[in-house]
């Protein structure tokens, strides 16, 4: 038995050692180009792709009906932003996402705290939540439309639904993972229940909670795209669906690009939050 464990563990150790070194030797160190060279190279590929796309579009190899040139999309963006409703649509979309996120996030966090702290609450709530979670939340869309129609409520509900579960799961997980030895220390130092939660449990659970926030941002965005594609009268999704009727592929590509950009921005904000709030954590914080 112990023999088996040893052989099973040995490669683990080796791998752990490997990740520590910044450049695994079997891939080459990349020393010939240097770190900045590698960074440059990583950006070069996407830029070349866009350039090829632009050239192919201008040369007429790709029909504008299929895929307009990037420069055309950019022009459309400027035109819609100055004379059209682009900024309004963007504002509407962001507001929907934010409202749904705050609602779903609060519910998920509150339930997570409850279940994390109380065995009774866990017994009462957790199984039901896990069952609902098993449903792909987008599959609920037809039902949600029957309940709430295709107005704002439906869109916000869908976003909130998508956000609740990742926040809930990661909050309970984070609370459970707090080192019991630190909780014991808190008791020895005479902390009351409230202080124990504020000084030890929540900070200990924070890395996991922030991971939940990042997941939730992604699902919030996905929910918004789906919700806005169906029966919206404003918003980025509406812009795309409206453009579809007139075969304005430039507007459709623009909408897709905006969704992508906001997704990237949301992730960047989440990362920034992690760096700021987890400055103490060796895996997240900027080295200090």
């Amino acid at each position, binding site marked *: 038995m112990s023999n088996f464990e040893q052989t099973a563990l040995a490669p683990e150790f080796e791998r752990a050692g490997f990740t520590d070194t910044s450049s695994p030797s079997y891939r080459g160190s990349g020393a010939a180009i240097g770190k900045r060279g590698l960074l440059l190279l990583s950006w070069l590929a996407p830029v070349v792709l866009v350039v090829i796309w632009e050239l192919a579009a201008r040369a007429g190899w790709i029909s504008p009906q299929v895929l307009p040139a990037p420069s055309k999309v950019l022009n459309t963006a400027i035109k819609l932003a100055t004379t059209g409703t682009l900024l309004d649509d963007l504002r509407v979309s962001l507001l929907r996402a934010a409202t749904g996120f705050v609602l779903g996030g609060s519910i998920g966090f509150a339930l997570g705290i409850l279940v994390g702290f109380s065995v009774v609450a866990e017994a009462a709530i957790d199984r039901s939540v896990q069952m609902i979670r098993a449903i792909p939340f987008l599959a609920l869309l037809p039902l949600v439309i029957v309940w709430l129609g295709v107005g704002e409520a439906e869109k916000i509900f869908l976003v909130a639904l998508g956000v609740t579960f990742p926040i809930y799961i990661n909050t309970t997980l984070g609370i459970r993972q707090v080192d019991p030895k630190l909780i014991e220390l808190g008791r020895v130092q005479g902390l009351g229940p409230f202080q124990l939660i504020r000084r030890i449990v929540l900070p200990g659970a924070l890395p996991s909670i922030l991971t939940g926030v990042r997941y939730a941002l992604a699902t919030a965005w996905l929910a918004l795209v789906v919700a806005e594609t169906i029966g919206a009268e404003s918003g980025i999704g509406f812009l795309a669906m409206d453009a579809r009727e007139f075969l304005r592929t430039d507007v459709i590509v623009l909408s897709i690009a905006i969704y992508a950009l906001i997704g990237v921005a949301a992730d960047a904000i989440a990362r920034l939050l992690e760096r700021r709030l987890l400055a*103490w954590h060796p895996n997240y914080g900027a080295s200090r």
Partner: protein
Amino acid sequence: MTPHVSVPPFSPTIEPPAVVVSNLSRAYGDRVIIRNLSLRIERGEFVALLGESGCGKTTLLRALAGLDPIQGGRIVAPRRPAVVFQEHRLLPWDTLSRNVSLGLTAPDARTRVADALAEVGLGERLNDWPRNLSGGQAQRVALARALVQEPELLLLDEPFAALDALTRIRMHDLVRELVAKHRPGVLLVTHDVDEAIALADRILVMRHGAIAFEHRTNTAGLRISRADLLAELGVASQREGIT
């Protein structure tokens, strides 16, 4: 209260004791861990508790710390004791000063924290993070966190076991110095016979949940020989007999 100049070895005073344990019992199911144990530790007295693994010494410490409920007997301590564990148990998300002030409610907390960290030689690092500390430094902060509460009873649960030999010796000196200054009653749980001899005014050996042997360092400062103590612990060594 008159200021005491404590000259080790320990001399009894009229102060109330740091803790009095009478007829303590503790069992897990059918397994009796502590049976009918009585113990009194005076303020300023340094007691080392030795014993094989599973003899109940950690259980006793946890009962004194209020971490485990007791099933029989009484523990009378004037105030909540402070504990230093084998691991430093610093909160990684708090600076050293926030760590030391954890649970401290005194109005002059700031200066007391600064003083406590200065006492353990880390006065310059109030705003540093635990992860920048070596093992010995982290354990010094844990000691500061315990002493800043001005405890009447200080419980040390093998606090030096994870340190390298040189660091351990420095820690012994520091602990001796700080205990002489703050004068809590100390209960040190340890595996290290030499550590017990070096630090304690009184050495207890626990066996099967009871105190099987007690040695008080006499006034001449003569300490028990290592061999006698090892024999009490059931380690009979031919070579040790020579010393």
